[in-house]
């Protein structure tokens, strides 16, 4: 290979390699020198390094590596920093008042690998890489969910694993069928192999080979599981509740994004067929409706956020229909949603006693004792509820505008009505914090790292809405693939 491509090659792989190095360091360094507080520092360092390393790699040109197994494009230039930021915040969240987690070494290692999995997932150029990336991600998450070795954690991990393996089965079957009928797993190849993707064949309802569509259905099901679309969502509340809160935060913020984006890839592949568009439409509607409805009666805050994340998955998938405008909106939405949900989990992490988190009732009178924490929570919650001028509102606005532009009037109307309904359970949190008398005193002594994370997140959620132009511009650049 000529030196120019070689430098490309090196630069592109710099990020994942640094991250892997950091992960390994996080795993082994403590064993070598038993300095406990070194580990997280290392992990963060790695993340930060990677974060810096990505910028030179960024450019409008897209590079294809390993004969198309990986494609680095503006798309990944947007998402890699996104996942790394998520990782960094997760690490900060993990450093709460009570000193590190048990088995902290592998904890950070797994986190970093999960992030790596996500990065590979969004940069994968063909289905097998996708499969491997997903597995890398999943296996790490199974372990992370149960990392506390507590009953709840174990249950969460197991359930996640069980359903995950079912999903894997579907995935593999899907891959098999797609490969079998199209003879390739590479996305571009598939794209061109599909009848309706040919500009020549403009048949109104171009039909796929039944086995092909079956394969795609299997794939959609498998990834809907990761993106937590109804009816493949049922693991979400349980796992979010049982897993350690920082892990839940990572799932809500980053993993969901990975799932959504890979689903989007499938949407783009199949969008030529009306039936598949209907399927995505239906999934979106069912998801946003059921997610919100089931969130209404929730008491446990982590569960509530779980359901809310389901509902948001529904909103986001409304953006699929909007073409590149839609993708741009989706990317923006994912970012601001990640920030808000990360923040909400951060507050829980700061005050919870065990990984089951806290109930809404526990927050009664919270503002009296912790005005600033409560204020931050209010910001995150209102952003999730989509109240202007917070970022969440702008996210919704962009996504729905894109969807409406594609003519999905009813989808948008339903989405808007449901987001009005959702206000009820979001406001319950505010009501508890500000309008009820305190009865269970929550003692929070957030560590410096935690405070830093909270401040950054709150500022971002407040500012990224009113000044959403820069982030939008980034999303704009990334919205081509």
């Amino acid at each position, binding site marked *: 290979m000529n030196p120019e491509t070689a430098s490309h090659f090196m630069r592109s792989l710099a990020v994942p390699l640094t991250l892997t190095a950091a992960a390994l360091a996080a795993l082994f360094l403590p064993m070598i020198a038993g300095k406990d507080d070194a580990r997280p520092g290392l992990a963060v360092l790695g993340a930060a390094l990677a974060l810096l390393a990505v910028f030179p790699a960024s450019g409008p040109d897209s590079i294809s590596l390993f004969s198309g197994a990986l494609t680095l494009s503006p798309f990944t230039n947007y998402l890699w920093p996104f996942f790394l930021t998520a990782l960094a915040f997760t690490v900060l969240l993990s450093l709460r008042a009570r000193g590190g987690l048990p088995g902290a070494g592998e904890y950070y290692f797994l986190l970093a690998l999960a992030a790596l999995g996500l990065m590979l997932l969004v940069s994968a150029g063909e289905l*097998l890489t996708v*499969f*491997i990336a997903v*597995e890398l991600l*999943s*296996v790490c998450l*199974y*372990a992370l969910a*149960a990392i506390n*070795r*507590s*009953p*709840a954690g*174990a*249950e*969460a*991990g*197991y*359930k996640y*694993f*069980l359903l995950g*393996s*079912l999903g*894997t*089965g579907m995935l*593999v*079957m899907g*891959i*098999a*069928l797609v*490969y*079998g009928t199209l*003879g390739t797993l590479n996305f571009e190849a598939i794209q061109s192999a599909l009848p309706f993707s040919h500009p020549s064949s403009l048949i109104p309802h171009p039909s796929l080979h039944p086995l092909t569509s079956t394969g795609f259905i299997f794939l959609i099901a498998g990834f809907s599981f990761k993106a937590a679309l109804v009816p493949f969502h049922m693991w979400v*509340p*349980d796992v979010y*509740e*049982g897993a350690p809160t920082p892990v839940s935060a990572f799932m809500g913020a980053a993993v969901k994004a990975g799932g959504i984006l890979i689903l989007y890839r499938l949407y783009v592949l199949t969008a030529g067929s009306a039936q598949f568009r209907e399927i995505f439409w239906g999934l979106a509607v069912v998801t946003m409706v059921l997610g919100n409805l089931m969130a209404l009666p*929730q008491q*446990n805050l982590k*569960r509530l956020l779980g359901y809310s994340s389901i509902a948001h998955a529904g909103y986001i998938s409304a953006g699929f229909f909007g073409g590149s405008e839609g993708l741009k909106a989706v990317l923006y939405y994912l970012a601001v949603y990640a920030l808000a949900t990360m923040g909400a989990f951060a507050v829980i992490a700061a005050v919870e006693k065990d990984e089951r988190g806290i109930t809404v009732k526990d927050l009664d009178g919270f503002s009296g004792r912790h005005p600033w924490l409560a204020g931050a929570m209010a910001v995150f919650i209102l952003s999730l509820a989509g109240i202007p001028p917070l970022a969440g509102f702008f996210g919704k606005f962009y996504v729905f505008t894109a969807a409406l532009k594609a003519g999905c009037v009813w989808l948008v109307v339903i989405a808007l009505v449901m987001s009005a309904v959702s206000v009820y359970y979001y406001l319950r949190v505010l009501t508890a914090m500000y309008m009820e008398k305190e009865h269970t005193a929550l003692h929070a002594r957030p560590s410096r790292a935690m405070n830093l994370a909270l401040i950054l997140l709150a500022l971002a959620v407040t500012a990224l809405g009113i000044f959403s132009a820069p982030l939008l511009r980034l999303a704009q650049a990334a919205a081509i693939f």
Partner: protein
Amino acid sequence: MPFEHLLVLSFILFALAAAGFLTHKNTIVLLMFAELMLNAANLALAAFAKLSGSPEPQIFILMIFAVAAAEAGVGLALIILLARNLKTLDIDEIRNLKG
């Protein structure tokens, strides 16, 4: 043995595995059924390999094997952890997280 038969066989296998996955109660057995699903899929791949005659699918199969192994490892670890914590392997009794 023509490839259709293989394919059908893999489908049947997959269906049976899924059925077992949905009916059996023992967590370990469930794990095994999950593996069986993967292998059913592998069988389908093999069938397609027979059809196309290209080596690609075999490579896929190997990779899937590897991944499955890793998954199974973590799975077993989780089951042990579960058994320690809840003193049961019956899926119906693992339901503290719900609602």
